[in-house]
C-alpha cells in the first residue's frame, strides 16, 4: 500500500509565520496523506505547535497557503477549521472546569431539536464517545474534579469525536500513565485504519517510533526533513533535530569556579507532587537548567523566586560576610531582600512596564530599598553609565514598549544590575532577541558572575546553555537527572538525558 500514490489530504505550501520580530516559521512545506500517523518533532521552539496551530485555525499564515484535498482553505478561526474537517487536541487543556464531561464533549457541536438542546441525545452521544474511546468517566462529573490525566483523556476523546478527516495531537501523553498511553495507541491505530490523517506532535522518541509511520523534523522554524519512520533510528532522528552551528557568541568561561556557595537549595518540592530537588549555586557560576517543556523547570525557578509557594524544602542565600539566611517561601519581596531576583520569560506580560521609560524601568530595581514616602533616587548618570555598559543605545526617556526584543531584555536585566542583587534567576535569557544583542547579553551575564554574582538560567535553547553555562542540570518530570559540566556538554548528551527513560546510549561527544 503505497501511501504516496494517493493525493495528499492536506498540504502546507511554504507557510511562514512571525510574531513581532520572532520568525516562528520560515517557508515550511508539509504534506499529509490519509491513513497515516505523521509525527512532527523538533526541539523546543522549533515551530511544531505554531505549524499545527495554522491548521487548527488559531493562527493565520503570513505567507504561503494551506490546501485541503487540493483546494485552498481559509482557516480563520478554530470553528472554521473544525468545520473544514480538522480536529485538534491542543497542548493546553481546553476542557472547561465548570462543565460536565458530557457538556465538554459536545461543546460547539450541540444537537438541537426545535431550537432546544436535545439533552437525552447529547448525553447518549457522550456515553457512546466515551465507550468508543475506551475511557471510563462518569458523563455527569464536573471536569474541575478530574485529574490532569483524566482531563487529557477527555480532550483526546473530544478530539476523536468528530467528523474530521485530520486529527492533530499536540503532546497528548504528557500527563498520561502507561496504561493510558496504551489506550491512546489503540485509538490512533483505529483512526489510521479508518483512513484518517493524524498529526502527532511529540518529543517522545519511543512514541514516535511506536505509533507513527512518517516523521517531519523542524529546526528553528524551518523544515529539516520528512522521512518514513523505517528509514530512521532514534539516534539519527536526534541528529536531525540538533546540530546548529555554535556561533562564536559566548564569552570565555573561567577555568575554575571557587567553591564559595551563593545559593543552596535542599529538598525543594515546588508542588506537593514534585520530587525533591537539591543543588548548590556557587559564586561566579552560571548554572543552566535544561529539559523539555513543562518538566518542572518553571516551577523550580518560580518557587526559588518566591512567585510560588514552596511545598517544602529550604533555600539559603549566602551574604558577603559568609553567613547565610534562609529565604521565606512564597514572597517575592522577601526573595529580593535576600538578593534573589527573577527575570521572567514573558518580558512584556510579566517583566517590563511597557508604558514607562527605560529610565523608570531601571530605577524600579534600586527603588526597593527606598521607603515609599521618601524621595525616589534620581541619579541620571547611573542610568547613563549602566546603559553604556549594556550597550543600550536608545535614549533613556523612551518607553520600553517601543524597544526591540534585545533592548527590552537589557532593560529588564538593567533593573536588577542597578539594584545590586547577587543572584539572578533567568527564564529564557535570549528569547526573541537578535544575534547581536544575544552576544552582548551573554557578556553582561558573565560579567555579573565575574563580579561575584551567580546565575541560574532556564533555557530551551541547548546550544545557548552549552556555550554559556559552567554547569547544566537536566530536569525531567520535576527531578534533576543529570549534572553536566558545560565544557563537555553536547546537544545529543543533554537531549538524551531529557528524552529517554533509560540511560542514553551516547555518553560523550
Amino acid at each position, binding site marked *: 500500500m503505497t501511501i504516496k500514490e494517493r493525493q495528499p489530504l492536506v498540504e502546507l505550501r511554504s507557510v511562514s509565520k512571525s510574531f513581532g520580530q520572532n520568525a516562528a516559521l520560515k517557508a515550511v512545506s508539509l504534506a499529509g496523506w490519509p491513513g497515516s500517523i505523521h509525527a512532527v518533532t523538533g526541539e523546543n521552539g522549533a515551530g511544531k505547535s505554531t505549524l499545527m496551530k495554522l491548521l487548527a485555525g488559531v493562527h493565520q499564515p503570513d505567507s504561503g497557503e494551506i490546501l485541503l484535498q487540493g483546494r485552498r482553505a481559509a482557516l480563520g478561526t478554530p470553528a472554521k477549521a473544525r468545520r473544514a474537517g480538522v480536529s485538534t487536541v491542543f497542548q493546553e487543556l481546553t476542557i472547561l472546569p465548570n462543565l460536565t464531561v458530557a457538556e465538554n464533549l459536545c461543546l460547539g457541536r450541540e444537537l438541537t431539536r426545535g431550537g432546544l438542546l436535545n439533552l437525552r441525545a447529547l448525553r447518549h452521544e457522550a456515553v457512546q464517545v466515551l465507550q468508543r474511546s475506551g475511557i471510563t468517566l462518569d458523563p455527569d462529573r464536573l471536569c474541575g474534579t478530574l485529574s490532569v490525566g483524566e482531563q487529557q483523556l477527555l480532550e483526546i476523546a473530544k478530539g476523536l469525536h468528530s467528523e474530521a478527516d485530520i486529527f492533530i495531537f499536540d503532546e497528548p501523553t504528557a500527563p498520561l500513565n502507561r496504561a493510558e498511553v496504551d489506550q491512546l495507541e489503540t485509538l490512533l491505530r483505529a483512526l489510521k485504519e479508518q483512513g484518517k490523517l493524524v498529526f502527532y506532535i511529540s518529543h517522545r522518541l519511543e512514541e514516535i517510533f511506536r505509533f507513527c509511520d512518517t516523521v517531519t523534523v523542524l529546526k528553528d522554524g524551518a523544515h529539516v526533513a520528512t522521512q518514513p519512520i523505517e528509514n530512521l533510528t532514534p539516534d539519527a532522528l536526534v541528529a536531525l533535530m540538533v546540530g546548529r552551528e555554535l556561533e562564536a557568541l559566548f564569552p570565555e568561561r573561567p577555568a575554575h569556579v571557587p567553591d564559595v556557595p551563593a545559593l543552596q537549595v535542599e529538598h525543594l518540592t515546588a508542588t506537593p507532587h514534585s520530587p525533591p530537588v537539591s543543588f548548590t549555586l556557587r559564586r561566579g557560576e552560571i548554572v543552566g537548567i535544561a529539559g523539555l517543556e513543562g518538566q518542572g523547570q518553571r516551577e523550580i525557578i518560580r518557587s526559588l523566586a518566591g512567585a510560588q509557594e514552596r511545598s517544602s524544602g529550604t533555600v539559603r542565600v549566602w551574604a558577603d560576610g559568609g553567613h547565610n539566611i534562609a529565604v521565606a517561601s512564597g514572597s*517575592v519581596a522577601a*526573595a529580593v531582600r535576600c538578593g534573589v531576583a527573577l527575570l521572567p520569560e514573558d518580558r512584556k506580560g510579566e517583566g517590563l512596564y511597557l508604558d514607562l521609560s527605560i529610565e523608570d524601568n531601571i530605577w524600579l530595581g534600586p*527603588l526597593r530599598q527606598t521607603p515609599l*514616602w521618601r524621595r525616589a533616587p534620581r541619579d541620571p548618570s547611573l542610568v547613563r553609565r549602566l546603559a553604556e555598559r549594556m550597550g543600550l543605545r536608545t535614549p533613556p526617556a523612551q518607553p520600553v514598549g517601543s524597544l526591540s526584543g534585545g533592548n527590552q531584555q537589557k532593560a529588564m536585566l538593567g533593573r536588577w544590575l542597578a539594584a545590586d542583587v547577587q543572584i539572578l534567576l533567568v527564564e529564557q535569557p535570549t528569547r526573541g532577541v537578535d544575534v547581536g544583542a544575544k552576544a552582548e547579553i551573554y557578556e553582561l551575564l558573565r560579567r555579573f558572575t565575574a563580579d561575584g554574582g551567580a546565575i541560574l538560567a532556564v533555557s530551551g535553547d541547548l546550544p545557548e546553555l552549552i556555550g554559556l553555562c559552567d554547569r547544566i542540570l537536566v530536569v525531567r518530570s520535576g527531578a534533576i537527572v543529570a549534572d553536566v559540566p558545560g565544557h563537555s556538554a553536547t546537544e545529543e548528551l543533554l537531549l538524551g538525558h531529557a528524552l529517554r527513560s533509560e540511560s542514553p546510549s551516547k555518553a560523550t561527544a
Partner: protein
Amino acid sequence: MSSSMSLPTSPGLAYRLQQAASFILALPPAYLGTLVLLASAAALRPNLLSPFLLLLILRQAAPLGFAAIGQSLVMRCRSLDLSSGGVIAVVSYLLTSGVMPLPWPIALPLCVLFGALVGAFNGFLIVRVRASAVIVTLAVSMILSGTVIALSQFHAVGDAPDILRAMGRARVAGVPLVPLLWIATLVPLALWLRRSAFGRVLDAVGANPRAAGLSGLPHLRVVFVAHVTSGAMSALSGLMLLGFVGVGNVKLGADLALNALAASILGGINFGSGRGGMLGPAVAAFMLVFLFNFLTSLGLGEPGKLMLQGTLIGAAALAYCLRHKDSAH
C-alpha cells in the same frame, strides 16, 4: 525618535504638521476640550468669560477637583472609588445636625479622618479580600447614605458651621479662597508624586500589576494608601460643598463620584495609566463645571447634563480602549 522618511514636495511642513497632530491627539482630551469650550463660550455666551464668573466657576469646580485627585490616584493603580457620596453625606450630617458639638478645629479634622477611615475600610476589602472595587465602594456608599437618612429622622440636618460658610465666601486678593486651597493641595501632591518612591511604584503598579508583583514592589500597600487618600479627599470636598451650599443635605455630593470618574478619564488618567499627571484631571474638573454652567446658560437642564456626562465617560473609555486594543494589558 529619528526616522528616515522620504517625503514628497514640502518635507518640513507636512512632517511637522503630522508631528503636531499626533502630539495634540495624545494629550488628555480635557485640554483640547477646554479650548473648544472656551471658544464656543466666546461665540455664544461671552459673559461667561468675564474674570468674575470664571473665578466663580473655578470655585465651584474645587470640590470636584479634590475628588478628582483621589479618584485619579485610585484609578492609576487600576482601582476605583465610588464611595464619595456616602462619605460626604456622613460629613454633612455630622457637622450640621448637632450630633457632634465640637469646636471646628477638632470637628473638621475629625471629618477628614473619617473619610480616611472609610478609605481604609474600602482598601482593606479590596486588597486583602480582593473584592471588586466598584461593588465595595458602591455598597459602602449605600450603607453610609442609608444610615444618614435613617438617622436624620432623629436629628435633622441644619446649617453648616459658620467657619465653612465663611471659607466658602472668603477671598484673598480678589481670588476666592477655596480654589487656592485646591491648588495648594494639588501642586505639592503632584510634585511629591513625581519625585517620591510612592509615585514611581504607583506608576509601575498601574502599568503592569503582574510585573510589579514579580519584582517585589509593594503593590498592595500602594493600592491601600491610594484608597485612604481618596477617602480623605472625598471628605475635604464634602467640607467645601457644605461651605457653598450652607445647609446640610443628604443628597450633597451624590454625583461627585461619577463626575470625578469623568474628570479623571477626560484628564488622561485611565485604568493603569497615569499619563495625564495631576494636572489633567484638574483641568478636566474645571472643564466639566464650565461645561455644565455653559449648558445651563443655553437652557439645558439636569437631564441633558446627565446624558452628556454618560456620553463623555463612554466615549472617552471607548476611545482609550480602542486605541490600546493591541497592547497586552
